């Protein structure tokens, strides 16, 4: 092969090898190998027919997180990490310029959305929803945050939140 022919062969081989590699990696999913995208917390998330108190409580917590995160303009996941400890909550509030009143509003809005979602999904009797809403509007923010963390205490022991009438209507829980 002449010098020029060798040169052409070399360039053609380089192009072929490069295209083969890039093509193979693209075909194997190289363009879509990235972390999963988080969902918009403002969009409704379907409840997956929960069974039992624990699953209802999980769905309730997630709905409440979505509602509060939507109100604050952050992802549900960022808020979940922020609410883990008082220190993480403080860091989060500083980072996003959120004061106590704004956080309290958002947390309550989240709980109200969770009550509505639970009601819509048939997981919460409408008779319970109204007094729960009234309770959520009044409780201190720290207690509201604890409810998001573990809604079982709310759903399992309504009497402590709603007074004696709560005990009567607990039987309406599915």
């Amino acid at each position, binding site marked *: 092969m002449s*010098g020029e022919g060798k040169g052409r062969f070399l360039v053609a081989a380089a192009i072929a090898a490069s295209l083969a590699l890039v093509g193979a990696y693209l075909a194997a999913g190289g363009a879509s190998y990235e972390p999963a995208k988080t969902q918009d917390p403002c969009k409704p998330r379907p409840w997956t027919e929960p069974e039992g108190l624990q699953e209802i409580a999980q769905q309730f917590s997630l709905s409440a997180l979505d509602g509060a995160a939507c109100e604050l303009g952050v992802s549900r996941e960022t808020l979940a990490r922020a609410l883990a400890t008082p220190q993480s909550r403080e860091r989060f509030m500083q980072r996003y310029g959120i004061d106590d009143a704004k956080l309290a509003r958002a947390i309550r809005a989240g709980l109200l959305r969770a009550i509505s979602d639970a009601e819509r999904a048939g997981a919460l009797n409408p008779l319970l929803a109204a007094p729960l809403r009234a309770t959520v509007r009044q409780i201190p923010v720290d207690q509201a945050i604890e409810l998001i963390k573990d809604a079982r205490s709310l759903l399992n022991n309504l009497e402590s939140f709603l007074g004696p009438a709560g005990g009567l209507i607990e039987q309406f829980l599915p």
Partner: protein
Amino acid sequence: MSPPRPRLTALAVAVALVLADSSIVVLALPQIYRDLDTSVAGVTWVLISFNLVMALAAVPAAHLARRIGPGRAAAIGLAVFAGAGLACGLSTELSTLIAARCVQALGGALAVTAVLELLPATVGSERRAVAIWATAGAAGAALGPAVGGLLTELVSWQSIFLLQAPLAIAAGVPVLAVARHEAATGVISTELRRTGRPHLLANLALALVSAAIAAALFLLVLLLIEGWRLSPIGAAIVVSAMPLAALLGARVGPAMGSERARAAAGAILVSGGLGGLALLPHAEVALTVPPQILVGLGLALVLSALTETALAGRAPQAIHGGWTISARHAGVAIGLIVLTPLFTADLAQQRNDALDASTAVVLDSKVEPLLKLQLAQRIEERLEGERGKVPTLGPAFEPLPEDPATRADVILLREELQDQLDRAATHAFSPSFGLGALIGLLALIPIGLARRVDL
């Protein structure tokens, strides 16, 4: 004077040693980053400073070498390089390390350009001298990261610099005979004809392709160590695929057509390899090997071909060699300056995306609510403890629950989280690898123009 064989070996070692220094600390950067308590952007200046000073000093150093004599210049250059290497190894602060690296680059620039003046007399042929000089430089640049990684893991990052001192002095011993001869006889001007300006297009292509090669080496090492959490020795073994391919390319390259064809093929291979690294389909070490082979073959072809083109028919060799050194190191420095902010911003973004994706996996998992919240809390703690890096979340799951069903759920969750982190770390580097590939392809423009424009 020394007989040619030991002197030739010493001169080739001197060139390889100096040019390896542009990349030898790549694998040590994470360790330096932790030891000297600095930032990712700050630690890259350990690399950038050396390359920037080499780029600025190479041509003036070549003039100085011709003025004082290449033997004397090489001896002084290697002595300065060795002394500054000791200072680097003894540095306890980033500022002193960077300052010492600048002095090291000054000595290196003087040594490497002077060697190019000494080589023709040693090997008896200007063309062969250029080929040896270019190959030694490419081999040094390619081998640097692997050697640096091994030393970092087995001894310390300081040992990289401390070991260079005796090597530089050993390489300088045969040169001293030439220096003594020059002192006795006066400086002999070996080449007075000037046959043209620097080869602008070849040097421009060298700068572009060097920026792309720096991207491949630097980013791959950071991906392996910081992203996939390999040890420096593990990363050194992985990135040794690149110099092995480069050695193969250096052997077969010269017989494979004209300098222009080799340069074009080399630039395409470097870009193709970088394109592969930008599109890694999984966080698998083995998947980095084919792209590395392309980059290694490509760098051997393109660096030697462009260096030979830049020097062919031009004199004095030291001055034109100085221009090629300047172009190569300017390319590396500019590549790092451009890519560092891009990839550190991507890394920070991907770190947040990874944490969100990981938290989403935890929130949507089957584990019970209180355990979820404990895990979310531990993820937050890991995040705060990792200072801007993609965190290692494995310890957040210790100890595993005793209940077999919950334990199985948590193990599954840990695997899903690990997958999300690997995806985030790998994806964070993709735009920078892609930009590197684009820069490599841009080198084809001056390579193509070099046929029509005689510069």
